[in-house]
């Protein structure tokens, strides 16, 4: 048995080589039988297996020779892609019984779910019982892939020329049947309709919700702005910084309302508390819908809005003022320190004294103009200040 493919190395150098190979096999068989090294074709007729053929060589030898002369590498037109060769099988005596023997040889090629090709031969031997003597047999199996390759190429070319097919193929790719394909097509349209309707509904819902939330934001923004304004007036004594903090509160609240108006639905800062309060603690759509119609149609009064907004603003104000005051205190302390240091430096320069001498003179209430300096360039030192203080005492 031998197999060949195009990609394999060349089978045999020539047909003569194949013939000699066949003869060698034949001779081996003869040697086993009687030690005679002559090939079957040189045997006298009584020793030859098949006697129904004339000429040189046995039928199997000539068949094989005929096949071998059709060297696949020389006959490109008849070149099989797969070749299974059982050149010569010789059996002296064979008792064969078969029952339901199935043999399948098939070539299958699938191109995705688009094309399924199956080519093959099925042989079923239901019941065979025979006695056979002096058997010479050969068998061949050939597979050619030219047609399959052409079909695959055709599929690819068709898809390349008609790319729109890919879309429809994608919709119905799970089923190849035409009827089912039609059903899928209709279902696809129905799904599209549903999707379109849902999309429209969502657009309406989104639009309405957006408008509602926008109105909420607008109304609440106004309320907060007013609260901020009123609170700013109420806390006017806090100072300029606090006034700015109030402004920040209004601005921040406005941004929060803006965020809500974008439909994020997220609670931003304390605005969610405001909305929740406006909705009477309920998160259902009815309350929101009513809110969407504006503050004038709300179940809550403008006073409630003002109270809640004021509460929020006051909290923000307290935080802002506290922070501002802390900041001011720190800044003032730093400023005072800086001012003191600059004053001492200036006074030291004026009195030609060291900074430490100036600081000590302040502490001891000593007039530096009355102190004689003993340092370099007659600069007043700490020792001079202490001496002057003792002399005053």
């Amino acid at each position, binding site marked *: 048995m031998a197999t060949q493919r195009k990609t394999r190395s060349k089978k045999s150098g020539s047909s003569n080589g194949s013939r000699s190979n066949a003869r060698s096999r034949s001779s081996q068989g003869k040697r086993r039988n009687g030690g005679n090294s002559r090939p079957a074709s040189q045997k006298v007729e009584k020793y030859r297996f098949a006697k*129904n053929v004339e000429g040189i060589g046995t039928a199997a030898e000539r068949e094989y020779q005929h096949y071998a002369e059709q060297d696949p590498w020389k006959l490109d037109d008849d070149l099989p892609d797969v070749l299974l060769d059982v050149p010569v099988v010789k059996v002296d005596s064979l008792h064969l019984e078969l029952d339901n023997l199935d043999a399948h040889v098939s070539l299958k090629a699938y191109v995705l779910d688009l094309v399924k090709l199956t080519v093959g*031969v099925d*042989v079923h031997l239901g019941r065979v019982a025979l006695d056979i003597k002096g058997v010479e047999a050969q068998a061949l*199996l050939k597979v050619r892939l030219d*047609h399959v390759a052409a079909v695959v190429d055709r599929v690819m070319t068709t898809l390349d020329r008609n790319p729109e097919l890919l879309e429809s193929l994608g919709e119905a790719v799970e089923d190849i049947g035409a009827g089912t394909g039609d059903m899928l097509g209709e279902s696809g349209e129905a799904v599209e309709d549903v999707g379109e309707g849902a999309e429209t509904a969502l657009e309406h819902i989104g639009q309405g919700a957006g408008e509602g939330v926008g109105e909420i934001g607008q109304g609440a923004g106004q309320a907060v702005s007013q609260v901020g304004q009123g609170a700013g007036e109420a806390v006017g004594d806090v100072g300029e910084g606090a006034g700015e903090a109030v402004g920040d509160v209004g601005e921040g609240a406005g941004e929060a309302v803006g965020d809500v108006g974008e439909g994020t639905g997220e609670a931003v800062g304390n605005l969610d508390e405001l909305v929740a309060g406006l909705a009477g603690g309920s998160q259902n759509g009815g309350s929101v819908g009513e809110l969407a119609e504006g503050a004038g149609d709300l179940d809550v009064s403008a006073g409630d809005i003002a109270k809640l907004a004021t509460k929020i603003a006051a909290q923000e104000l307290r935080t802002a003022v506290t922070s501002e005051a802390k900041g001011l205190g720190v800044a003032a302390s730093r400023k005072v320190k800086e001012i003191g240091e600059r004053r001492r430096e200036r006074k030291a320069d004026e009195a030609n004294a060291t900074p430490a001498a100036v600081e000590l003179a302040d502490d001891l209430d000593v007039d530096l103009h009355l102190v004689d300096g003993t340092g370099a360039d007659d600069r007043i030192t700490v020792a001079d200040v202490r001496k002057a203080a003792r002399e005053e005492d």
Partner: protein
Amino acid sequence: MADSHRPPDDPDVEIGATVRARRLRFRKKPQVDVKTRGHVEVHPELADELNLEGEGGSHAERENLPDEVEPGVNYRNVRVGWRAGAELRHDEDATDG
């Protein structure tokens, strides 16, 4: 029963065998069935573009052996050449036209 159609000249799948025997005797009447397959499933969208059909068949040549063998009969110097093949045929005229 062998397939009544001859196999294509250059089938995609081909299997063949030649058996010669000095003496052949069937103890029972053989039951043999040979089928060729050339099955094509093409997506409906490509059905018009790929007009494919399968074709196949088998053929046997016999010497000293009748079509209907009889059990217990010795057939001498028998030769049976059998070949089966199947191919996919692409109708170019239908698709290019």
